[in-house]
């Protein structure tokens, strides 16, 4: 069938029309993170016919993801497929017109910038504030709109951050939180994810189709279990002296770049080590005496007593079963020598 016909029900919607659909097909969206928010946002935008989606994620599909992370199947968890790759495989079957670029990296201030520069808009589907503040600076620096989103329990929130217009994340959170509630610590229900994504993708579709005047200027927060829904006017939060979006920006999250080579993945009972790249064949020899060695094109894993070690091709290693950096490093060096 002709390319446009499949979007008929979306073109019938007055806010988009055929002209809006043609714009969508020519646009590029960067989705940072491909967990619950990212996989669902990617699905909605691919079905809607966005021209190109770049999906960045550092992690692989696990069984506990399946309860709320759309696109992924039991086979993806069984084979430990990186989330960006698994999402790309499923999305291609849903809409072969949309170009999907899966990127399996640990996003940093450095490697993220070129992706931000290429994107028409950025969807925040990350799970920690470190990367959100980096994204905030990068988007202000490059004058790119990004759509903040987060959820936990039965609650969630979203806000569209428009450079030179709305407050930025730094303005809103004057005190940088040490941590925020995570799904891994306090749980989350699937519908809360979908509610955040419904708002993020609506605003994205408005921006991509040129319906800028209809974009919400408010921060939306809800609780589905207890029936709260608020849309908050945050214009007052904008600070002219903000170090990220103010008159003399310094982009602190890019300048004082976090050099940590090792970090605890919040609430995951996992430590990530950024190290040298090893060949998988070398590693396989070293792991040969351990249990449950699994390999696919993207990662190699094994059980080391009560812990599990996972090597990625980009030089990162996950040690599952500990939140002690010391213990994780000890185990890591036992293997790589």
């Amino acid at each position: 069938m002709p390319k446009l016909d499949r979007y008929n029900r979306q073109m019938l919607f007055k806010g988009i029309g055929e002209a809006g659909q043609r714009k969508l097909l020519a646009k590029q969206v960067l989705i940072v993170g491909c967990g619950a928010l990212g996989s669902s946002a990617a699905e909605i935008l691919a079905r809607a016919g966005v021209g190109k989606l770049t999906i960045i994620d550092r992690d692989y599909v696990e069984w506990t993801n399946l309860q709320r992370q759309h696109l992924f199947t039991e086979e993806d968890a069984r084979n430990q497929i990186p989330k960006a790759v698994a999402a790309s495989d499923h999305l291609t079957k849903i809409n072969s017109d949309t170009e999907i670029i899966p990127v399996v990296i640990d996003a940093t201030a450095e490697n993220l910038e070129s992706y931000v520069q290429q994107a028409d808009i950025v969807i925040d589907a990350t799970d920690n504030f470190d990367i959100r503040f980096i994204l905030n600076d990068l988007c202000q620096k490059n004058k790119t709109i990004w759509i903040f989103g987060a959820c936990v329990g039965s609650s969630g929130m979203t806000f569209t951050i428009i450079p030179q217009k709305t407050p930025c994340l730094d303005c809103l959170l004057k005190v940088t939180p040490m941590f925020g509630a995570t799904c891994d610590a306090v749980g989350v229900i699937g519908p809360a994810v979908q509610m955040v994504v419904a708002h993020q993708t609506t605003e994205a579709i408005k921006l991509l189709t040129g319906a800028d005047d209809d974009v919400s200027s408010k921060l939306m927060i809800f609780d589905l279990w207890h029936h709260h829904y608020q849309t908050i006017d945050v214009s007052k939060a904008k600070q002219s002296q903000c170090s990220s979006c103010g008159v003399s920006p310094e982009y602190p999250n890019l300048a004082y770049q976090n050099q940590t080579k090792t970090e605890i993945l919040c609430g995951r009972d996992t430590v990530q080590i950024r190290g040298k790249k090893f060949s998988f064949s070398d590693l396989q020899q070293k792991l040969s005496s351990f249990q449950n060695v699994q390999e696919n094109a993207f990662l190699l894993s094994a059980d080391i007593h009560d812990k599990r070690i996972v090597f990625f091709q980009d030089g990162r290693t996950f040690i599952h079963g500990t939140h002690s950096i010391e213990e994780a490093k000890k185990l890591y060096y036992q293997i790589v020598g």
Partner: protein
Amino acid sequence: MIKVLLFAQLQEEAQTDVIEIDFQEGTVTELKKILQSQFDFSQLSESMFAINEAYALEHDVVKSGDTVAVIPPVSGG
């Protein structure tokens, strides 16, 4: 009386999602002190406050009849 809506982890810490407080008039800073004295909140200082769906600064005034939303940092995704 004011109505305070709590979101995310604040609900677990207060064991409720809505608090009614006998509060006539005062600043957000004063309200925060009262909330912190009554409940064992871990992230109140990092939370956003909104009065009747408008973002509130520390010196903004809360009056009887207002609805205040308290929004802690949420990072799940």
